[in-house]
C-alpha cells in the first residue's frame, strides 16, 4: 500500500524492523479469493530461499501453474469442494478453478500484508507513491476459499487445515459471518487449532457499523481488527447554483465536466419507479437526466453501478448521497461523480426542491495527504459490545482500512462492474478487510523480531501500545458521529507497530487458559471438544470466570437497576523487557465507579517473570445502555502498558 507504511511509522525504521533473514522467514497465510501472481507486489527480487520450515505447495489449475509461485508467493492452494457441493460446478467462464484471483479482494489483502516494494504505484494517478506490504520481506501463501464473493465454511476449514500443515506463522482472514457461538463458527474453530500451533490469527471485525453489537470474529483467541482512516483524502467538490459548496470524495479520472454549472436533478424525480432515488438499472428516464448531474441515494446497488446507470441514461455526472451516517467512501466512477455524506446530501436535496432550476458542478481535487485529524474510526467499522462474551472487549484494535491502495486482479475492473473494461494494477478499496491484513503484516514483523512470542503475546503488544489520542491530546474521533470514538469501536486503539516491538509487559494466554474460559462459558464437554479437539471436563469444584481470562482489555458488564455490584478481574503480566518496577494508574471519568487494583506496584527482575494482579470494579445501579470508558495503565517510566476499560449496564 502507499502511505500507510509512513502513517504507521514503518518507513525508514530499519533500526526497528530490519531487513534480516528473520523477517523473511515469516510466512503469512491469506485465506481469501486467491491471487493475481503476475503483479509486481509479488516480485521476489532480493529474497533468499524459501524458509526450510515451509511444507506447502503451489497448486496448478485453470489459468494458474505451479511455476507462478516464487520466493515471495511461496504457496497457492484452492478449496472449492464445499462451494461446488452446494452450488454446482464453478462457472469457469466467470472464475478460474485455481488459486487465481478473479475478484481482486485476495490480491489486495495479500499485497497489503506482505507485498514487495513497487515504485510508481497508483490507481489512475490517485494515491501515487511507493507501494509495499507491511511485512514486505515476509513470504505469502494464499488459500483461495472464496468464490464469487461467497466463502463456504467447509472450504474455509479445509484452507485453515492445510495452512496449519504448511507451517504458516500468521493467518489473515478478511471475512466473517453471523454471530455464531464459538462451537458452530468454522473460523473460530479453525483459529483455535492455529493458535495452539503458535499461529497468530488476525480477522476483520466486519463492516456493519456504526450499529452496536455488529461484530464478527469475536473469539478471544482471534485478533479482531476494526478500521480507521489515514491522513490521506481524495477530495471532490460539489458546487451548487446557490453558491454553497460541499466536500465529497472521488477517484474519477476521466474528462472533467464542461465548465460552468449544469442542471441538477434528484434521481427520485427522474424516475417512475418507487425506488428511483437509488439509481438502479432501468429506473431513470433518459429525457429527464440527459446532460444533467443526477443525485442518487445510497442503498441496494453498489455506488459505482449508480454512476454507470446515470451514464447509461445520458447523465453528465452523479452525486452519491450516503444514507448511512457521515462515512465517505470513494469510487473510480465511469463518469464525473462524487460521494457526499448524509447531511450534505440532505442539504443538496433541499436545494433541488427549493430551486426551480437547480444547477451544480463537480471539481476533482486529486490526492491530498497530511489530512488531520487522522486516524478516525470508520463509520462502517463494526462495533461492540461482544454479543457472545460481553466480558471480552472487541474489536481488539483498529488499523488503516479506508481508501487503501493495494494490488488488484487483472480479471476485474476497479469498480468491479462487468461493464467497466478498465484494468488496473492497483485499486483503492475500503473495509475491515483492508485493516485486517495491515495487522497481519505487522504481526509478522513482530514475529520476526520476537519469534518466541505466542499469538496472545503479539496481540497484547499490539493492544497495550495502541493509541487513542491525537498528538494534540484530543480523543480519536468516530466518523459516524463526529464525536470521540469509544473502546466499543476502536478497542485498545489504533495500532502503533514501532511501540509494539518493545511493550515492556504482555498479557500472555495459552490453550489451557482458553479451556478455563470455555468452562466459564458453561460449554458442555462436547462443545469444548468440538473447539479444542480434546476430552476436557470442567472441574465441578472449581469456580471458572470469564473475567479471569488474561486479556489486555477490561469489558465490565453490570446488570442494570439491581443496586451496587462488584465484579473482580484477575490478570497476569509477563515481563518481556528489562527489569523494572511498574506502577498502576487508573483513569475513569465517572467517580461513582470504584476501581481497586491490587497490588498497585509490581517489580520484575527477570525476563519472562510473571506477576498477577486483581482489579475490582464496584459500581452503583445505572440505567440500561449506560456506558463508561477508561483505562488501566502500568508504567515503569519508559513503557506504558495500557488496557482499555469499557463498563456497561444492561
Amino acid at each position, binding site marked *: 500500500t502507499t502511505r500507510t507504511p509512513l502513517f504507521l511509522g514503518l518507513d525508514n525504521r530499519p533500526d526497528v524492523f530490519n531487513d534480516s533473514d528473520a523477517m523473511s522467514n515469516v510466512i503469512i497465510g491469506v485465506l481469501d479469493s486467491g491471487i493475481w501472481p503476475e503483479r509486481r507486489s509479488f516480485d521476489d527480487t532480493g529474497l533468499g530461499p524459501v524458509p526450510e520450515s515451509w511444507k506447502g505447495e503451489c497448486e496448478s489449475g485453470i489459468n494458474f501453474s505451479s511455476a507462478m509461485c516464487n520466493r515471495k508467493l511461496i504457496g497457492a492452494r484452492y478449496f472449492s469442494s464445499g462451494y461446488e457441493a452446494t452450488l454446482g460446478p464453478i462457472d469457469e467462464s466467470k472464475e478460474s478453478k485455481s488459486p487465481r484471483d478473479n475478484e481482486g479482494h485476495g490480491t489486495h489483502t495479500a499485497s497489503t500484508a506482505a507485498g514487495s516494494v513497487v515504485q510508481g504505484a497508483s490507481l489512475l494517478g490517485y494515491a501515487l507513491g511507493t507501494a509495499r506490504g507491511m511485512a514486505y520481506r515476509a513470504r505469502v501463501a494464499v488459500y483461495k476459499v472464496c468464490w464469487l464473493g461467497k466463502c463456504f465454511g467447509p472450504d474455509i476449514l479445509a484452507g485453515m487445515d492445510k495452512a496449519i500443515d504448511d507451517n504458516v506463522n500468521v493467518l489473515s482472514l478478511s471475512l*466473517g459471518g453471523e454471530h455464531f457461538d464459538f462451537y458452530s*463458527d468454522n473460523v473460530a474453530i479453525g483459529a483455535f*487449532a492455529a493458535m495452539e500451533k503458535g499461529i497468530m490469527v488476525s480477522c476483520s471485525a466486519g463492516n456493519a457499523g456504526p450499529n452496536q453489537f455488529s461484530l464478527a470474529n469475536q473469539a478471544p483467541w482471534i485478533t479482531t481488527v476494526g478500521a480507521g482512516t489515514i491522513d490521506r483524502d481524495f477530495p471532490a467538490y460539489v458546487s451548487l447554483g446557490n453558491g454553497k459548496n460541499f466536500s465529497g470524495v472521488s477517484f474519477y479520472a476521466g474528462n472533467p465536466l464542461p465548465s460552468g454549472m449544469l442542471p441538477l436533478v434528484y434521481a427520485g424525480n427522474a424516475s417512475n419507479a418507487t425506488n428511483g432515488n437509488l439509481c438502479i438499472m432501468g429506473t431513470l428516464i433518459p429525457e429527464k437526466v440527459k446532460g444533467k448531474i443526477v443525485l442518487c441515494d445510497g442503498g441496494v446497488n453498489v455506488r459505482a453501478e449508480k454512476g454507470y446507470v446515470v451514464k447509461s441514461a445520458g447523465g453528465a455526472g452523479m452525486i452519491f448521497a450516503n444514507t448511512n451516517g457521515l462515512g465517505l467512501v470513494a469510487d473510480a466512477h465511469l463518469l464525473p461523480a462524487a460521494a457526499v455524506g448524509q447531511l450534505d446530501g440532505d442539504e443538496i436535496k433541499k436545494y433541488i426542491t427549493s430551486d426551480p432550476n437547480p444547477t451544480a458542478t463537480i471539481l476533482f481535487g486529486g490526492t491530498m495527504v497530511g489530512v488531520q485529524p487522522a486516524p478516525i474510526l470508520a463509520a462502517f467499522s463494526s462495533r461492540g459490545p461482544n454479543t457472545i462474551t460481553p466480558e471480552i472487549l472487541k474489536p481488539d484494535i483498529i488499523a488503516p482500512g479506508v481508501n487503501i491502495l493495494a494490488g488488484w486482479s487483472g480479471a476485474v475492473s476497479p469498480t468491479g462492474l462487468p461493464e467497466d473494461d478498465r484494468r488496473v494494477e492497483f485499486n483503492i478499496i475500503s473495509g475491515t478487510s483492508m485493516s485486517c491484513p495491515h495487522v497481519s503484516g505487522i504481526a509478522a514483523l513482530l514475529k520476526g523480531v520476537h519469534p518466541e512470542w505466542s499469538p496472545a503475546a503479539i496481540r497484547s503488544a499490539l493492544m497495550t501500545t495502541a493509541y487513542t489520542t491525537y498528538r494534540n491530546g484530543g480523543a480519536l474521533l468516530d466518523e459516524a458521529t463526529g464525536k470521540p470514538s469509544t473502546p466499543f469501536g476502536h478497542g485498545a486503539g489504533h495500532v502503533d507497530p514501532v511501540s509494539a516491538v518493545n511493550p515492556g509487559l504482555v498479557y500472555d494466554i495459552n490453550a489451557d487458559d482458553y479451556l478455563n474460559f470455555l468452562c466459564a462459558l458453561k460449554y458442555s464437554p462436547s462443545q469444548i471438544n468440538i473447539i479444542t479437539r480434546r476430552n476436557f471436563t470442567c472441574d465441578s469444584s472449581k469456580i471458572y470466570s470469564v473475567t479471569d481470562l488474561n486479556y489486555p482489555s477490561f469489558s465490565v458488564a453490570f446488570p442494570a437497576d439491581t443496586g451496587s455490584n462488584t465484579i473482580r478481574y484477575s490478570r497476569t503480566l509477563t515481563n518481556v523487557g528489562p527489569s523494572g518496577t511498574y506502577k498502576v494508574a487508573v483513569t475513569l471519568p465517572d467517580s461513582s465507579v470504584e476501581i481497586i487494583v491490587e497490588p498497585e506496584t509490581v517489580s520484575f527482575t527477570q525476563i519472562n517473570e510473571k506477576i498477577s494482579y486483581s482489579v475490582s470494579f464496584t459500581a452503583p445501579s445505572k440505567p440500561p445502555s449506560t456506558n463508561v470508558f477508561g483505562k488501566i495503565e502500568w508504567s515503569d517510566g519508559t513503557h506504558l502498558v495500557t488496557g482499555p476499560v469499557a463498563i456497561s449496564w444492561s
Partner: protein
Amino acid sequence: AMEEKKTYIIHMAKSQMPATFDDHTHWYDASLKSVSESAEMIYVYNNVIHGFAARLTAQEAESLKTQPGILSVLPEVIYQLH
C-alpha cells in the same frame, strides 16, 4: 425436502474411535456409511477438527447424530468477504 442433500460438518470424538480402526479416516467413513451408502464425503480434516464434511439428507444427518463418537452434525455456514 427430506431427500434434498445439504453439506454438514461432522465433529467426531476421536478418543471414542474403536480400536478396530487404525486410521481415523476409516472410522469417519464407516460412520458415514452406517447412515447412508450414497453419502458423499467432501473433506476430511486433520488439524482444525476431528471430523469431516459431507453431503447428507436431513434424515441422514439426524441419524448420524445418534451414532457413537459423533459430537455434532452442523449444517454448513456461508461467510462473506469484508
